């Protein structure tokens, strides 16, 4: 990816900041430390109370201990409640801030830097990664502060009474720190492998579930189950490897506790400190072990958050695919389509590999063009250049005779409507879903656009008319209807240039043909460029360009 040194630096800073506590997470850690300390104190003072009581003193001397036991018993849940409230509120606040900033940083990178296919899945990944990163505060930072505070407090207090026991407790803490580090290291090392194996299971099982009938038809059911089993074996192997770290941490802690307890029992001098305090000191490592055991879960979350953070940075630290532009306004072409011309334009997504070999293409207003050609010959790249999503690497892109890079980016893009292979339907009404393309559109305009996209009958069936809700929780929409809604949106926008990238890639033959037929019929007067790897329905275009052949011809000249 194209990163400048400065960007690398900010990435590194971002990564180290993952665990940096804000004042509120620090407060939560403090409260958590108080809760954990109360728990340790509860066990220890209970021990003291019992042993002191067995010496049969006057009941009044026990009273302090009884009050202490009750106080610690009360304090633990109260502090923990406070800790959870503060840490979750801080994390949610942080989530809100990060969501906004990540979204803002994504805008200039969209769509060219999100990959050419499956962009919605990339963006879903961003949402999940962001959640993992923010979770690290609640699951890692706060427990780390709380555990450290409690551990250090226990070590200091025991050391004040009996240095030998203090040393034993310190030893326990050091072992816990080392095993946590080991757990984190092992977890992080196998993270990538496990993620890849899980992704493969998702891919294969989605493929089989989606195509169960097709696989049945060719008698490939057993073969398909074989793929699934193979993917499962890989996940199982990766899971086993990853569980090693946690298992090691889980096993080392009891061993260290045993050693610390025995050392404490051997070094403590009951004659010097008194039997009750001796009991308290011997029980201290045991009480502390409860506090230390959740650390391995925290390390797991840390490894996860770091992987997510790295992915986020890889995505967000990219440079936009379009450089700075001039501020010329495009010729007044809201009614008429502009004359688009590519002269020897080549393009590349990463600056290294040529995705589109030099191509020359003339698109006078009103041209309808179908671009075909084998996979990888640069069809989608061509469209991205035309849409001004991607700067050409060489050659000229002219809009009514003016170099495109001299024209204001937003102004030029506002002449062009792009429909990709996965038009998104927002969880909103039909009206709002369409109106986002043209906010001042009336219901009549919307109905006209729907009809032009071949959705008149579908519109009639809608239970609540244009108020019918679409999207995740709304009415189900078939693949064909989704493609048509994307086209209706583009038509409604009134933009004089329509660019369609594999609009019917996921549809069956008859539907694909019908959708494109309606598209060509509805877009008279506009410039339309359709890219497709399938020939269905492309005969409606006035011109066809076999891109592989076209670029080859130009190279050979």
């Amino acid at each position, binding site marked *: 990816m194209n990163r400048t040194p400065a960007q690398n630096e900010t990435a590194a800073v971002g990564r180290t900041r993952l665990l940096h506590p804000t004042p509120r997470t620090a407060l939560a850690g403090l409260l958590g430390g108080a809760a954990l300390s109360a728990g340790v104190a*509860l066990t220890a003072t209970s021990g003291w109370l019992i042993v002191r009581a067995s010496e049969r003193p006057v009941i009044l001397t026990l009273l302090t*201990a009884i009050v202490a036991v009750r106080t610690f018993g009360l304090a633990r849940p109260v502090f923990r409640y406070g800790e959870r409230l503060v840490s979750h509120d801080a994390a949610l606040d942080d989530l809100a801030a990060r969501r906004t900033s990540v979204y803002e940083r994504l805008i200039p990178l969209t769509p060219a830097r999100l990959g050419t296919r499956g962009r919605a899945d990339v963006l879903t990944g961003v949402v999940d990664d962001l959640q993992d990163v923010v979770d690290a505060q609640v699951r890692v930072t706060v427990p780390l502060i709380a555990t450290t505070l409690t551990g250090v407090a226990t070590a200091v207090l025991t050391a004040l009474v009996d240095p030998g026991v203090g040393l034993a407790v310190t030893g326990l803490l050091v072992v816990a720190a080392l095993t946590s580090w080991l757990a984190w290291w092992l977890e992080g090392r196998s993270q990538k492998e496990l993620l890849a194996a899980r992704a493969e299971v998702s891919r294969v099982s989605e493929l089989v579930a989606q195509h169960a009938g097709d696989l049945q038809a060719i008698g490939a059911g057993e073969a398909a189950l074989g793929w699934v089993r193979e993917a499962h074996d890989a996940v199982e192997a990766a899971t086993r490897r990853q569980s090693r770290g946690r298992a090691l941490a889980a096993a080392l802690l009891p061993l260290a506790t045993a050693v610390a307890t025995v050392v404490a029992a051997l070094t403590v001098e009951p004659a010097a400190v008194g039997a009750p305090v001796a009991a308290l000191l011997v029980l201290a490592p045991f009480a502390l072990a409860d506090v230390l055991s959740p650390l391995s879960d925290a390390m797991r979350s840390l490894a996860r958050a770091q992987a997510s953070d790295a992915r986020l940075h890889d995505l967000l630290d990219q440079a936009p695919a379009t450089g700075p532009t001039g501020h010329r306004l495009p010729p007044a072409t809201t009614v008429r389509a502009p004359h688009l011309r590519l002269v020897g334009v080549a393009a590349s997504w990463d600056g290294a590999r040529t995705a589109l070999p030099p191509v020359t293409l003339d698109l006078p207003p009103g041209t309808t063009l179908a671009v075909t050609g084998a996979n990888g010959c640069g069809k989608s790249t061509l469209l991205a250049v035309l849409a001004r999503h991607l700067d050409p690497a060489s050659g000229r892109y002219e809009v009514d005779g003016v170099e495109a890079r001299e024209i204001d980016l937003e102004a030029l893009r506002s002449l062009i409507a792009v429909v990709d292979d996965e038009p998104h339907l927002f969880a909103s009404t039909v009206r709002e879903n369409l109106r986002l393309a043209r906010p001042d559109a009336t219901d009549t305009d919307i109905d006209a656009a729907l009809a032009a996209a071949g959705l008149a009958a579908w519109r009639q069936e809608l239970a609540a008319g244009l108020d019918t809700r679409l999207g995740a929780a709304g009415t189900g929409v078939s693949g064909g209807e989704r493609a048509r809604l994307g086209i209706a949106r583009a038509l409604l926008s009134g933009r004089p240039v329509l660019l369609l990238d594999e609009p019917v890639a996921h549809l069956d033959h008859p539907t694909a043909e019908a959708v494109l037929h309606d598209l060509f019929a509805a877009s008279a007067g506009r410039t339309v460029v359709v890219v497709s790897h399938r020939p269905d329905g492309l005969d409606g275009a006035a011109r066809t360009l076999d891109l592989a052949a076209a670029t080859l011809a130009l190279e050979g000249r």
Partner: protein
Amino acid sequence: MRPFDPQLLRAAPAARRPVVALAVVGVLQGVATIATAFALTAVVLAVVKGMPVGRPGAWLAGLFALRAALSWTSERVSAWAGSRVSAALREQLLAAWLRADADRRPDPSHAVALAAQGTSSVEPYVAKYLPALVTAAVVPPLAIATLAVVDWPSALIVVLTVPLLPVFAALIGASTRDATQRRWQALSALSGHFLDVMRGLPTLVGYGRATRQVETISSVSQRHRRTTMETLRLAFLSSAALELLATISVAMVAVTVGIRLSHGSVALGTGLVAILLAPEAYWPIRRVGAEFHAAADGAEALADIQGHLATGTGSEVAAAGAGRDDAARRLAASLARPATVVASGLTYTYPGTTVPVLDGVSLTAGPGLTVLTGPSGTGKTTLLEVLAGIRVPQAGTLSTPAAHLVSQRPFLTADTVRSNLALGTAAGQDACWQALRDVGLDGVVAAMPQGLDTRIGDDGFGLSAGQRARLVLARATLSEATVVLLDEPTAHLDPESAGIAHEAIRTLAARRCVVAVSHRPELVAAADAHVHLEQGRTTHSDSRQDREAQQ
């Protein structure tokens, strides 16, 4: 919602071993925990009484070593069990769908979600919730029973207070259920908003509306935060109340033991064991509650999966199978008799509709090529699917050996040419090349960078339409099925590609019974028999001999 449904073990036999392993480790851990309390007491007693620590210390060390081994095993087993159980469920679910006919499969989007995410969410249920459940079932009873033997008054306090935990939890749950439910709905709408906007970002950018959403995201996220905190406050409060109840109970045990000790009515060792054992009766129960939240999705998915396994498989399918038999048996049978499809009175109505698509179709197709024609919408595709056994007719009889159906959008996946070609067969290198020669594709594949091992994309991305059509024909020739059904095999090909494909179909028909739906006059002309379908009925059928006799 029951804590654990034994149905899981019946529905997924592969889950038995992992779940049993989890239970065994859990019980052993419980016993070791109880024993530790005694060893720790012995150590403290030795210290207090100034006796040598050696023996009790060794015991303690030994027990902790045992616990270390058990913790190690438990982590390993639960991770393995989680992935094993979800894998077993996924495999069973997919196997059931691959066996079931089209009407018995859920719609693809639901199937995809259940097979990928649904089964995965069972993992935390098995890996975290079930071990917690085992611990809660084993440790508290064991702790209470031990207490009862060692110091019954402490046991009494515990017995009286432990049941308060679930009762308290249920009371809190019942009194806040409506509020919680309402909030969860609001919450899922709010948290869904960001995902929705993000997935739609390319669309928003495309229409210049992206920047306007920044404010909305910020305000919706803050609203999300407030609503979440309202929900969490309640949840945290109730768990704090439960914790308070538990710690107060433990403190009660400690204080009463202390007072009884000072009266000399109980021994120090007994008192120490009592205060060390008492917490063991409470925390496992609280942990189940905490883990259940994380496992709730898994429990829900599990119920859904069990529903699908119960309806998707079983005897009904076999009983209903006019067209579906055990694939292996059909294959064996097909080798024995000549490849002939005999169908009579086939009637099929799509679920949720009233008009039958097939209305008493009769058809006999012997070896050679039978071409099926008819206007669109007369059920030609449906007929092929019925003949292939993918759909089960509501009436009529059908006798056919195992069939290979090449549908209009045949399955091609992102993999090598070889694995797409040999899919469902055990064909080797030579057979693959022969099949490619049969369809005139050998030259194309030989010219590819890695020959048979060249990767193609999803849906045959990277191949031309004609190449895709011929590749799936080649696959049909490799199939062991003696009946091959072709749905519009050359509808979208240019004349040259279609000519090569028709040639291949003729070659195929020389060895098998081929039934092809096609509108191509040249294919009809080349057919051994021609069947015309109109409005769900056979209206015309003739053979080549009939036609030649007419001329």
